[in-house]
């Protein structure tokens, strides 16, 4: 099986779908001839043709509006937004249109679009190349939000998203493109080479939306994470030396509530980890759900570890980033109550 980094895995997913389904097309800023600023669509135009993978005007609202119209026609567009920070100009299109089209038209029209976008920090991208906006999508009825943490999942989830008949926001943790970054920014960079999850089949397969992965089973405490934070969680768990059960949500909508509840029912403790600033983040929803469903099992307050409630600061990246040390502290706190 070929070894792929996350860029290659996503490229492969697009390649497979372009080859298989003439209704799939890819467009976005710089994705055509050049192959995208992160090279994710590299070679796709040359292989599949100019109208299958092409450049779009710098107009995120226009890109999504166009994709919705194409989707309503019957295509399965996979638009790219160059950075998730730049989804915001298209927010109205996503919320008022993509998310609501099926409901309001009683199923006459729908928008089977998959909006790919690199997101998250850890690359010294400063305020507008680092944000994690998943919470504002999770609140929108009618939108699905998917976030892979490995090359294998990225390919399988992306194919599933493209084949899904609902609009999907597909957030790619750009810090994971080239390796399983665990938040230890001062240590040597790891690549995906040698990681089991980098063994990626060349052909078609799917990882279903709405199924979390138990990355590590444990009995002391449940850690909920997604994207880059899955790897950070591994490191933090190691640092804390606790027998944690680590759950990679993989998609936050649909959310695999059963896996979460079963785990916390077992461990009685829960720590939630995300990159986005904490207040109003998706961790709040997770905390509330766990509390509602596992109240009597809880031995300790559910903790949330996230970015600070400030914009993403360029020079203070590693002060801001919720790394293993901060998770380990939370794990330790949570374990105090035996």
């Amino acid at each position, binding site marked *: 099986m070929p070894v792929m980094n996350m860029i290659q895995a996503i490229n492969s997913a697009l390649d497979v779908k372009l080859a298989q389904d003439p209704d799939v097309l890819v467009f976005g800023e710089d994705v055509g001839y050049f192959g995208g600023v992160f090279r994710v669509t590299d070679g796709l135009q040359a292989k599949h043709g100019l109208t299958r993978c092409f450049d779009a005007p710098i107009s995120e609202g226009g890109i999504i509006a166009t994709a919705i119209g194409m989707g309503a026609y019957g295509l399965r567009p996979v638009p790219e937004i160059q950075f998730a920070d730049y989804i915001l100009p298209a927010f109205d299109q996503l919320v008022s249109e993509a998310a609501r089209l099926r409901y309001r038209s009683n199923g006459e029209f729908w928008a089977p679009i998959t909006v790919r976008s690199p997101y998250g920090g850890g690359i010294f991208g400063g305020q507008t190349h680092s944000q994690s906006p998943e919470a504002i999508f999770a609140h929108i009825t009618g939108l*699905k939000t998917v976030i892979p943490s490995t090359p294998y999942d990225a390919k399988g989830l992306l194919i599933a998203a493209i084949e899904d008949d609902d609009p999907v926001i597909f957030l790619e943790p750009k810090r994971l493109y080239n390796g399983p970054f665990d938040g230890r920014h001062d240590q040597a960079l790891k690549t995906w080479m040698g990681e089991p999850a980098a063994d990626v089949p060349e052909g078609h397969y799917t990882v279903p939306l709405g199924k979390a992965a138990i990355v590590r089973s444990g009995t002391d405490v449940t850690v909920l994470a997604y994207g880059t934070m899955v790897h950070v969680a591994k490191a933090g768990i190691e640092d804390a030396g606790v027998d944690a059960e680590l759950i990679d949500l993989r998609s936050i909508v649909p959310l695999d509530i059963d896996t979460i509840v079963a785990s916390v029912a077992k461990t009685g403790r829960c720590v939630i980890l995300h990159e986005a600033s904490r207040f109003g983040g998706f961790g709040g929803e997770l905390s509330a759900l766990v509390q509602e469903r596992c109240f009597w099992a809880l031995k300790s307050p559910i903790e949330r570890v996230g970015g600070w409630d400030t914009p993403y600061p360029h020079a203070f990246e590693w002060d801001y980033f919720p790394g293993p040390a901060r998770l380990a502290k939370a794990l330790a706190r949570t374990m105090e109550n035996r």
Partner: protein
Amino acid sequence: MTDSPALSLYVPEPLARPGEAPRFDHLSFAAGAAEVRPAVDAPEHELRDMPYGLVRVLGETASAWDPVLDPEILRQGLRAMVQTRLFEDRLFRAHRQGKTSFFMKSTGEEAIGVAQSMALGAGDMCFPTYRVQGWLIARGYSIETMINQIYSNERDPLKGRQLPILYSAREYGFYSLSGNVGSRFGHAVGWAMASAYRGDRGIALGYIGEGTTAEGDFHEALTFASVYRAPVILAVTNNQWAISSFSGIAGAERTTFAAKALAYGIPGLRVDGNDFLAVWAATLWAAARARANLGPTLIEFVTYRVAGHSTSDDPTKYRPADEGSHWPLGDPIERLKEHLVALGEWSGERHAQMEAELTEALREAQRAAEAVGTLGKSKPSVAEMFEGVFKDPDWRVIEQRRELGI
């Protein structure tokens, strides 16, 4: 710089407010460059004066734009316009009687939706505003179903989920409406691009009100249409008002809406929107361009919103009460009727008889819809509230449905 005068902020105001005499002298109704009907493949630089003229047919002697339609077609158009007006008047009254929550009329603008509906093909798709109910009526969509939608009753095809008149009727070339304005304009472009991508033949028509042209969506749609030569007609219905804001708040003091085409290097036509034949002719011209892979056309339809914005509005609060009766382009129904009469193809009696027939049919449809129920008296199963969020329900709506006990 220091010797420059103090700056001052300019805020546009209409020429007449309540109590003042209506004035339309800011608008030009001269045919100008639009006297000529250019070849559909004329290069853009030859068309740059078109947006400042006005495409007219009715009332002109030998207009280059005359689409030369069979009188039977004209009678069908007239019928659909009259039906639209009667329908809207009736449902407006239904709102006043508390039978629904909201309603909107297109009085004075019926030629646009009706003529375009008839001039375009069954395989084409329009992306409507709330002011082209005539499109559906012209295509024979069931009036009873429209009323069921307006009443959100048990037979509402949209299952009680939408505000009245925000129809969706795919089979009739009518895309799903929504309450927010402007945001479907780009869908028309995407739809048209998809048709071109597939090598199909259907084209798209996007509608937008003149007030809404100020949204970024307008520009983005035109940019995409122009860049990818999408087979789409982009129509601005300039009815002079956007709720209480006159067209100057959208830029009409400076230029025409048709002139916005110049920004994208595509043709822009300014058309008498109360002239059924001019609407038809301009639509055909633009459609021919689209079908020949020559790309998009922007059309401004110059018209007038005779009624209030909606049932929630009282236009006498912000414009002269008699402004509508001074509108220089007249009434689209009267104009087409007179044309047919002049052709010897219609008469006052036939008109009165047609109105009586239509009224009876509308009454019948309304009666049938009311037998099902008006707003609040009848509604689809509450389970419908939980359907269609996604293709397949997820645990949240399943649990919540259970919580609500349905």
